[in-house]
């Protein structure tokens, strides 16, 4: 597969990137073993970084036991992690094409500006979370309902470094699809204890996060 980005998308992305404030670093993790779309993700990341001088890329062709992969807790490939001035846990696994391309672009902007498009009361509540939260949003590139939930998860990770937000293109990871029983997208799993389907409102999303915190406290 050859990655092509049409001129209009390229131009629009460049326009959007004019709003970037501080530098963004994309960490790209690929592997030479059993990786469906590693080459294509590398092409996409290269294209994205060529569209703004504020975006740099650090590549690691390495397996999960490599020190860099361990540091970033990368257990599957391809993976990208987006850092702004702070080391956010904004991660994307798989090929970000179709509706998902916009998710990565928006997350780069959020990481660079620190600005998220959420109501202020939600922002305050997300910032106040002080326990580790792992959000996994499972998506497909053809799903128009998926970006809203994926962007919200990444926004949460921008607001609070206790939150790791993974967006996962599920068709590339059949073992996860099986493990979490994914028969419809978007599906979101929080801390492996709470799960929900569909593009819910931000309030409902936050309620699920709070429930996961509550459950972890009870178990803890």
């Amino acid at each position: 597969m050859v990655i092509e980005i049409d001129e209009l998308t390229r131009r629009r992305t460049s326009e959007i990137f004019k709003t970037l404030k501080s530098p963004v670093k994309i960490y790209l993790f690929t592997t030479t073993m059993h990786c469906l779309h590693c080459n294509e993700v590398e092409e996409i990341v290269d294209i994205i970084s060529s569209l703004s001088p504020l975006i740099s890329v650090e590549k690691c062709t390495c397996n999960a036991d490599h020190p860099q992969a361990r540091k970033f807790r990368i257990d599957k490939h391809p993976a990208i992690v987006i850092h702004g001035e702070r080391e956010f846990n904004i991660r994307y696994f798989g090929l970000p094409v179709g509706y998902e391309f916009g998710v990565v672009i928006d997350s780069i902007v959020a990481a660079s500006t620190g600005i998220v498009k959420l109501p202020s009361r939600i922002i305050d509540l997300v910032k106040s979370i002080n326990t580790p939260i792992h959000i996994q949003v499972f998506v497909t590139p053809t799903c128009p309902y998926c970006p809203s939930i994926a962007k919200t998860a990444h926004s949460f990770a921008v607001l609070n470094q206790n939150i790791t937000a993974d967006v996962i293109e599920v068709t590339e990871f059949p073992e996860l699809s099986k493990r979490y029983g994914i028969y419809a997208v978007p599906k979101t799993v929080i801390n492996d204890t709470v799960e929900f389907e569909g593009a819910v409102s931000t309030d409902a999303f936050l309620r699920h996060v709070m429930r996961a915190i509550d459950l972890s406290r009870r178990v803890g």
Partner: protein
Amino acid sequence: MSIFLSEKPLYDVIVIGAGPAGLTAGMYCASMGFKTLVIEGSQPSRLQLAEQIHNYPGFPDGVSGFELLNRMRIQTLKAGAEFRREDVVAVDLLSPVKTVITRSESITAFTVIIAIGLGKRKLNIEGEDRFLGLGISYCALCDGPLYKDKTIALVSDEFPGDLLSLSRLASKIYFIPLNPLESISGLPGNVEVLNVKIKAITGVNRVEGLRITRNGIEETLQVDGVFISTRNIPFTSIIAKSGVEIDERGCIKVGKDMATNIEGVYAAGDCTCGGMQVAVAVGQGAVAAINAMAYIHQQRKELKSIIV
């Protein structure tokens, strides 16, 4: 009417819905200087799902629904409309100042333009609710890729565009038309058309089969998933409670001026069952906006005369 008007509303116009009708209405009102809010719900417009539109004027080579909608959105933003991304949970339309309630706040306006589009109809068969997200899907585009090389059933009340996209993914498709079709030619080899009655969707923890009756004999088809693609019905349950007249199909009743039975409330686009075409939705959005603006003008005059 305006004697009940106790305070100035926040907006001149609230448009509920951000499909082609809502965006056009919002664009018209905002560009004429009216304070306009467009509320975008979590369900994307049907237009966003359309792969290619070939009958919308100005695009001789066709345009993707996503692209067209995005262009309309940018135009409406440029015209000065505000956007809010929230679902509307209730509306109070009977007073001169209309209130639209979302999950987080109440917003008021002189007029409301309803452009909420269509929702999907359920089949109402056994197992449909229980297996939602466990092998039942209403979005072939979203969930199709999860059924690569699997056996699925597609239940539909018309010949669906979904059939061809699914046939490229699944290894076998049972296509079950709800209204029996005479004959269809040129179907891909992995599609089998079944003119049968569906009794139930079966399984233990997820969809495993479809119980049907064929020629009076009951049998179970082994399937990994069931895709339901039914003709859309309007999304009008919240609106119906507000006093807006809805016909027996669930469509909002409007006149030629796109006015509903309630003064200051207009409707446009698919929720009026006006033809399900983008060009029609755009035209209706414009008509609704023009009449809504005339109404606001009148309201302002009355308000002024009362204050004086």
